[in-house]
């Protein structure tokens, strides 16, 4: 004789939901949340980034239980984690390589947005929140890299904080203030540690805002046209939960490869030498994910209108990042997806090559051809955003947009056949 009442679990959930509609919210945001049916694998990178943020916080907290943020003990405490703490090597390699994975994912996520025009109305704030996350990540990673207190930690901290001395009049005072002394030292390390612990939680908060903004209008999609009805969408769960899970496992294979088989490949050997203020390394290079900004910084070797080169370099470098904030208003094309933008599609790939070239420039000593390539690439970076983006919308003739997502991706399925050119991928 079957009991017709709902089970105890269901009743508890109902009791809670009546008072705190948490489960209703989750149901709404995950199960009922309509998602375009045609998202490709580039749309996996958002959830991957969220996953990596959690990995960084969890591994970071475990590291923090063993790490000592003092100039005389920091290096040895990291080595103790590597040697004597149970699975300490695993936690530390997961954290150090996790930062690289996190950036790789977020950069792909950003270029995805640039290719499919995901920043365009009504998603401007969603995009801006993303750029803020990137800025916070850079700050977090920079300060994290200082913590092991190796040679590169120390000298990267010195080079980057010294940039603020380029600010006229008060620059030097700002640098002293940042350092908490007259060189990078113990007080610097302590405050960087405090901030390195804090910032990821601020990132987490901005990620929540990012998600709220996302769920307001839902995901963009490879066609860049809005969902117009039921036939265009599918519920997030189970379709995208399983696709994200599959993508996550593939990603974990790559991540695990680095952690277990090439844990120091992305790092700098100099950082296994304890920090030594008396000895400057031959080449001071940041981690790979900061190389393009570093390249722009060093590319400005001349002054303009009496503004010194150093200050211009700092402005150009920070500017390359903050420029992203106004991309929604720089791009004048009403069409989102590059699929329908015959010229922008190529210009996009030129930007990718440009940024990779900047990365290469940042990794090499600024001599000879490296400087020239850096200057051209920096110029092109600004040209892309300030000239090409506004101009292309005016001169480019976009391909006709399909009537709806369903019409384009369901072959004959909803009555309207899509032109053959749209069906590929």
């Amino acid at each position: 004789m079957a009991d017709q009442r709902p089970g105890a679990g269901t009743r508890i959930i109902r009791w809670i939901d009546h008072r705190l509609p948490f489960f209703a919210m989750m149901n709404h945001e995950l199960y009922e949340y309509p998602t375009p049916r045609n998202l490709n694998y580039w749309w996996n990178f958002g959830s991957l980034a969220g996953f990596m943020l959690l990995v960084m916080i969890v591994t970071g907290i475990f590291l923090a239980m063993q790490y000592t943020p003092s100039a005389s003990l920091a290096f040895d405490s990291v080595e103790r984690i590597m040697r004597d703490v149970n699975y300490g090597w695993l936690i530390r390699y997961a954290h150090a390589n996790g930062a690289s994975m996190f950036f790789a994912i977020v950069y792909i996520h950003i270029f995805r947005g640039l290719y499919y025009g995901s920043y365009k109305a009504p998603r401007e704030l969603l995009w801006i929140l993303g750029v803020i996350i990137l800025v916070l990540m850079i700050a977090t990673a920079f300060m994290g890299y200082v913590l092991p207190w190796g040679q590169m930690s120390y000298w990267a901290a010195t080079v980057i904080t010294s940039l603020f001395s380029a600010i006229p009049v008060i620059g030097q005072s700002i640098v002293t203030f940042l350092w908490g002394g007259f060189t990078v030292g113990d007080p610097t390390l302590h405050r960087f540690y405090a901030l390195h612990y804090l910032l990821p939680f601020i990132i987490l908060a901005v990620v929540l805002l990012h998600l709220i903004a996302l769920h307001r209008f839902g995901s963009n999609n490879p066609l860049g046209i809005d969902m117009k009805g039921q036939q265009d969408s599918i519920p997030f769960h189970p379709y995208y939960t399983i696709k994200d899970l599959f993508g996550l496992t593939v990603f974990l294979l790559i991540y695990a490869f680095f952690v277990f088989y090439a844990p120091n490949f992305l790092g700098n050997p100099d950082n296994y030498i304890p920090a030594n203020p008396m000895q400057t390394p031959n080449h001071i290079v940041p981690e790979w994910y900061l190389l393009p900004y570093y390249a722009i910084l060093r590319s400005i070797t001349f002054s303009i209108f009496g503004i010194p080169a150093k200050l211009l370099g700092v402005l150009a470098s920070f500017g390359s990042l903050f420029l992203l904030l106004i991309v929604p208003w720089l791009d004048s094309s009403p069409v989102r997806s590059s699929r329908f933008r015959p010229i922008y599609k190529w210009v996009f790939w030129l930007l990718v090559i440009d940024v990779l070239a900047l990365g290469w420039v940042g990794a090499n000593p600024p001599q000879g051809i490296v400087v020239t390539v850096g200057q051209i690439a920096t110029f092109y970076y600004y040209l892309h955003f300030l000239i090409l983006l506004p101009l292309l919308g005016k001169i480019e003739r976009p391909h006709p947009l399909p009537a709806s997502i369903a019409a384009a991706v369901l072959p004959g399925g909803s009555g309207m056949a899509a032109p053959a050119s749209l069906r590929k991928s």
Partner: protein
Amino acid sequence: MGRKLAFGWLAAAAAALSLTVAASAARAQETPPLPHQQWSFDGVFGTYDIAALQRGFQVYKQICSACHPVKHLFFRDLAALDYTPDQIKALAASYKCTAGPNDQGQMYERPCLPSDPIPGPFPNDEAAKAANGGALPPDLSMVVKAREGGPDYVFAILNGFVPAPAGFHVVQGKYYNEYFPGHNISMPPPLSDGAVTFADGTKATVPQMAHDVVTFLSWAAEPNLDTRHRIGARVFLFLIVGVGIFYAAKRKIWAAVH
């Protein structure tokens, strides 16, 4: 790192390819490219060769330890080289460690214990410099990870003491080394054929001793490599199965919408 990073970026930026080749060629003029050696710990299934570790430790102990410390190693760590607890205890006891203060407030010397760090040759860096013509013999427990090229580099340094080319100025009190940046190294050639006698009968040639001591120093820098590789293999198997299952599930769930 420059070269390695440049390489990674370049794989994608074909346009810059010719430039890197030019750049690394320019750097190669300084020191020749490192010859790659076979290491038992190379590759995905690599593990340390215990016999080589023991021979390498012997080379370190009898030769390098006159100048270089292994700051991050404790006697107890040597259990990984298959020494028995008694052997480790006896070995530790043959060194003197400073302990204290005792109830008189005095520091005192006592035989080392397995839980002590292996003492270095000098009480501090200044003493080490004073004894080595002003150059500091670096800590060897991290050196393999702290140099571009890792084990190949350290091996090359140990075998790189060749006669200086004609016209090259070797600084007074320094030695010519093919692979050392700038070629003037403050370390006298540490190895010579037959400098140690291996208990297992291995012939103590310079390349043999260098290979063994570098194996030992690689272990000293990365003692968890064996465990890491072993766990990694399991994680990979697990993930590959996971990829298969989730892919099948994805196909099945999506079959209805395509």
